[in-house]
């Protein structure tokens, strides 16, 4: 499997670089990377296990924005919101529709069983979705 994301250095907060062969995969991998960072301190390694737990909960996410960067931030923040208010952790992300104006996605996961690391929000800080020779990548800084 190709690499989904890397954790990168940040003094006070957390940052990842997410990769995707196409834009949809980039969005899915960014979400995956975010939940991997949340789960990791508690011994639930998403990096070695493809799925956090039996997917027993499903959610539909539908968002509108004006560009891919805004949509990416919105998407991650929507998942942070659902994680917190629904008490769920997600590990599979299917992006069904994606354009600079709209995202529709199906996410699956389960009730959060263990504590997770707090991520307050995904930020716009130095955020750029860039095209590479392998597809797309984006660096995202999270406030923790």
């Amino acid at each position, binding site marked *: 499997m190709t690499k989904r994301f890397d954790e990168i250095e940040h003094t*006070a907060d957390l940052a990842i670089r997410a990769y995707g062969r196409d834009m949809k995969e980039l969005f899915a991998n960014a979400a995956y990377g975010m939940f991997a960072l949340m789960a990791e301190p508690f011994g639930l390694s998403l990096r070695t296990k493809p799925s956090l737990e039996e997917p027993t909960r499903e959610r539909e996410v539908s968002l509108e924005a004006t560009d891919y960067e*805004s949509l990416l931030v919105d998407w991650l923040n929507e998942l942070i919101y659902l994680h*917190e*208010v629904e008490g769920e952790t997600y590990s599979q992300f299917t992006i069904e529709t994606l354009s600079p104006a709209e995202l529709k996605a199906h996410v699956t996961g389960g009730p959060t069983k263990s504590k997770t*690391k*707090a991520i307050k929000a995904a930020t716009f*800080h130095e955020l750029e979705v860039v095209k590479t020779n392998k597809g797309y990548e984006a660096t995202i800084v999270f406030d923790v």
Partner: protein
Amino acid sequence: MVNKQDFKKVEEYVYEIPKSFRPDMRVPARLYADEELLEAALGDRSLRQLVNTATLPGVVKYTLAMPDIHQGYGPPIGGVIPSKASTGIISPGAVGYDINCGVRLLRSNILAEEVKPIMGDIVNALFRGVPSGVGRSGDVRLSHRDTDNVLERGSAWAVSQGYGTKDDLEHTEERGGMAGAEARAVSPKAKKRGRDQLGTLGSGNHFVEVAEVEEVYDREVAEAFGLFEGQMVVWIHSGSRGLGHQVCTDYVRDLQKAVTKYGIKLPDRELVCAPFDSPEGRDYFAAMASAANYAWANRQVLAHRVRRILDDVLAGVVKDRELTLVYDLTHNIAKVEEHPIDGKLTKLVIHRKGATRAFGPGMRDLPADYREVGQPVLIPGDMGTASYVLVGTAKAMEKTFGTSCHGAGRVMSRRAAKRKIRGQELAKELRSQGIIVRGGSMAGLAEEAPAAYKDVDRVVNVVHSLGIARKVARVVPLGVIKG
């Protein structure tokens, strides 16, 4: 990239990047630091973030950063952005996600020596009794009406429900309730996140710490603050929880449109802003003040829990178990204040991101019992070294828009700390120094290790030597719970 030679030394501990450094700068950017702390700041992207703040519309005099500067998102942590209320901006990204993250200090008539033998029990009781961790709910559930009340009244609501005393309000910045708060400006999503999180600590660097006043430097001021050597005190560090995070998320998203509408050019989208005097700016201010009030109510309920827990665990050990609030202050906020600009008192929006208001003597916003000496400036350090109580000065009003530093400041990334430090070993090492620590996770503890922070003594010496706040007491940790 900002290099050392880009700075001009204005005076001892004051370094300035001139306006000519980048064409989009409107004012110079200053760093208050010694040479070593300046060098440390060159190690991450914080100085570039500082320069970015100097490009915002309406900024006056200079933007600045404190010696505990480190990399954030948008402005650096430790940053201060003064913007004219009439023609300048307000920026949700510059206040950050943890609106009114802040700290309060409680004093007692208990000697640390009396409680040291049972510090393990104290820490365990706090760990059990104070809800911590991400999204963790407490036992206070707010109705829709209660939520609106918390948002508009802050600590006063908490006190009206029996969480604390009127004296607590007197000793809280803004009396724990900021004017201009309007619950209607807060989204239903944000309110939903806030409904069951009042009185919870959260995670990251939030903590409750039982500590000892190790040394008093200024007896007169210490006496005014009720502090003495050998005294047991308690620190509480927390913020506005999911509610505040959602308010920031909402307005960072929504104000992207305002940036286009008002033709604002930004070097970083996270510095998203709107004119302070615009519908968008006013809405954000009303929502931010509401989230700030939630944070004050949160620390008020947390303090109530801590009081009850310590009252229980210390029963039979000490007689007088009362905990009195020394002060509660915010270090992530935007406030409207008057400061002299070109010899004229001018209304400014002061953004403090990881920076503490440090008003000097005589300011009318201070509680009556501190008005003569100045505002307590509370500087929590890392969990293995020390924290400080300082007092605000007139010089801070001249030099830093009445602001001081807010902590030690990180120097090592969380990733590096996790790689280098094992939580378990750290807890063991701290225990051998007489400090008992419990946290939500060992990895989380490692990220917060003392080695990940700057030398707090050094940071405090800069603000003390500059005269923007004066040392009153040094406080050392005995028992800590980390979120």
